[in-house]
């Protein structure tokens, strides 16, 4: 008999899954690492530097916020790392070093922490930061270059490690500023052509101009498989989003089927579908809500890509749908098991 023993007393259930918030965030970081590696290989060491800078500023911004507001330090849940990585991967490889800092601080301070921190942000912090940077530094955010020319054998260690963009990248012959495939697709679509000239293999490997994390479709798909197998993200969001994008490509473009794969594999659609649209806090919590949200994002993306003034519309689409999430969730509130419609009230009785 041991009367003095202390046992934990709590409400049921007494057992739980081993998946914790921190672990989820680390899994997402691992999935993002695929894209980070791909980006580094494609565009050189400076890309990695940009992403790490974004991560450091994001974590620093959150720590600073906690210190200023005298709140418990929340950086250990690793969510700031995820936000920082996504901000960094959304930058073009030529971005000046202050862009990741401004972007991350904006994402963490304004979008995340001011609205209550983890899980309370009304919109995806990284998407908001990207849109902010895009509007504030439009030319710098769209200064894309072609990847290092591995096939031509012109890549030296010096090229790979050079911090060339800080100084002057235009002087180096190897780094030709390049148009993204999106620009080509858009031009073809506006010209009313029934097909577009894009090398799909290049799109898969990422041998094109674009943002650091977005270009290599294979890396993104690997990350997506990792997250879906571990059930970190809801597979329905990318699936419905991609289907919706494909469907609206079919509708909006002349001979739409020729545009489906070029559209899906270029630009930020894949990256957005896997890492940004699936953000927990800013995606719906209801089963049907998730489907409406992803389908709606697909519609807006394709509207902007086909008819809008910009080549890319993914972050705008994500942001717009984020703002609709509370409404969608309210409309899609699930009926409880065994729910029966209450008998209709007669008019006039209610008052």
């Amino acid at each position, binding site marked *: *008999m041991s009367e003095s023993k202390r046992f934990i007393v709590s409400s049921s259930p007494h057992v739980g899954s081993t998946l914790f918030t921190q672990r989820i965030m680390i899994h997402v970081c691992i999935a993002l690492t695929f894209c980070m590696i791909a980006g580094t290989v494609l565009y050189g060491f400076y890309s990695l530097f940009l992403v790490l800078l974004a991560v450091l500023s994001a974590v620093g911004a959150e720590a600073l916020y906690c210190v200023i507001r005298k709140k418990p330090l929340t950086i250990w849940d690793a969510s700031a790392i995820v936000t920082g990585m996504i901000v960094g991967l959304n930058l073009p490889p030529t971005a000046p070093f202050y862009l990741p800092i401004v972007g991350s601080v904006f994402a963490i301070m304004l979008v995340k922490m001011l609205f209550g921190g983890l899980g309370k942000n009304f919109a995806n912090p990284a998407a908001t930061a990207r849109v902010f940077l895009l509007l504030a530094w439009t030319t710098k955010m769209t200064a894309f270059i072609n990847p290092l020319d591995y096939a031509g054998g012109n890549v030296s260690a010096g090229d790979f490690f050079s911090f060339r963009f800080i100084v002057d990248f235009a002087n180096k012959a190897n780094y030709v500023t390049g148009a993204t495939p999106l620009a080509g697709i858009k031009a073809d679509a506006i010209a009313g052509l029934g097909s577009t000239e894009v090398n799909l293999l290049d799109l898969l490997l990422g041998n094109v101009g674009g943002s650091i994390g977005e270009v290599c479709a294979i890396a993104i798909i690997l990350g997506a498989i990792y997250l879906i197998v571990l059930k970190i993200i809801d597979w329905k969001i990318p699936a419905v989003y991609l289907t919706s994008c494909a469907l609206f490509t079919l509708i909006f473009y002349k001979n739409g089927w020729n545009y489906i794969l070029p559209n899906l594999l270029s630009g930020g659609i894949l990256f957005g579908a896997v890492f940004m649209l699936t953000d927990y806090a800013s995606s719906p919590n209801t089963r049907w809500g998730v489907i409406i949200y992803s389908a709606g994002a697909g519609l807006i993306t394709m509207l902007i890509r086909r008819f809008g003034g910009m080549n890319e519309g993914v972050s705008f689409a994500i942001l717009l749908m984020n703002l609709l999430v509370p409404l969608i969730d309210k409309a899609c509130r699930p009926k409880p098991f065994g729910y029966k419609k209450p008998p209709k009230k007669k008019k006039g009785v209610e008052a």
Partner: protein
Amino acid sequence: MRLKTFKFGIHPKDMKELSHDCKFEEMPTGEKVYIPLAQHLGTPASACVEVGDYVKVGTKIGEASSYVSCNVHSSVSGIVEGFVLRENAMGKRIRHVCIANDGKYEEDFLPPLENPTREELVARCKECGLAGMGGATFPTHVKLENKNPIKALIINGSECEPYITTDYRLMIDKSQEVLEGIRYLAKAIGAPEIWIGIEANKDDAIEEMLRVTAGDNSIKVFALKTKYPQGGEKQLIYALAHQKVPAGGLPSDLGFIVLNISTALAMYEACALGKPLFSRYMTVSGKGINRPANIWVRFGVPFVEIVDYLGYRDDVQKVISGGPMMGVSLHSFMPVVTKGSSALLLLIEEEIRAVDPTTCINCARCANVCPMGLMPMMTDALVLKNMIKEIKPYNPLSCIECGCCAYVCPAKRPLVQSQRLAKKLIRERKL
């Protein structure tokens, strides 16, 4: 055979390997037993013995005080020493009848029933104080006496809670008795069909039940998918009949009555042997117990005697009466075995979730696993803000408190507690 199941739910580690091979053993009874007068749902029984009375095993010591109440019987023979206030598993101080055990176990049983009629069976069930022995302890005679026409009696052999192996052992070791009990129950409610649902991880039990029921066309044995909460009444009916019990309604509205294996065995003992309900089979398990076991134990035996008998480790962190998903955690070993004690679990640190809750990350895992189609994260957020009126559309009253939401929550928020709080506040404020 395609496994029958319900929608959503979770797959917790079942941990049944700790005790599923342990045959039942009789737990020795100590010098005194403390039998609570409230062992069931509904009003407590009123004592019908006086201090100093000599009672035998099976002597009625508490009389059902209303319709939804149960008789209580002595589990030992000896002198009634008095009425004491003791804490029950819920932490409430209630009256227990203290009986000094004289060790003779003289029996005071009822005569066995031969070819009983429906009314006799219900009367016997009431007299013997049967209550649902899965944990909710709803008086069985109330279920048997319902007025709706019954399509089928559903026997719940799913035992979906982790750790517990009582019903599994009963289906294997006492299959004949269980089957007889099931037949008595079916006769008592006038059910033309009997469906027995057993989770697929208990394949020996399925085989054994198929063997003993072979040749009887009115009994069907179904294999159910191993998923929690497969044994929830509404989930079980949905799995077997694909019908949804209306919110706020009872299974009998659809023509079903759900009873579990232990209750069937108690019915057999009450009718064929005349034994009132004074003992039960239970599982004692968890990594904190030295020797996990399935035991036969008399009511009123304090848990401390059981754990001393089987031995336990020093680093036990949590003691649970019932299963780990829906059971009640105890702060001491003082509560006693009652009609609803399906298990006693002693868990150590690696088995429990003893981390502080962090902020909700809105991942929607809770809503995605909820078998009742609720949104626990909304109830949690609103109840903490005291916005009780706004909770209503999220239907916390439909919650069956199965614990799936809190199990999967990566922030480890006490979502079930919030649901309970919301229910209580809604009822109190009559919203």
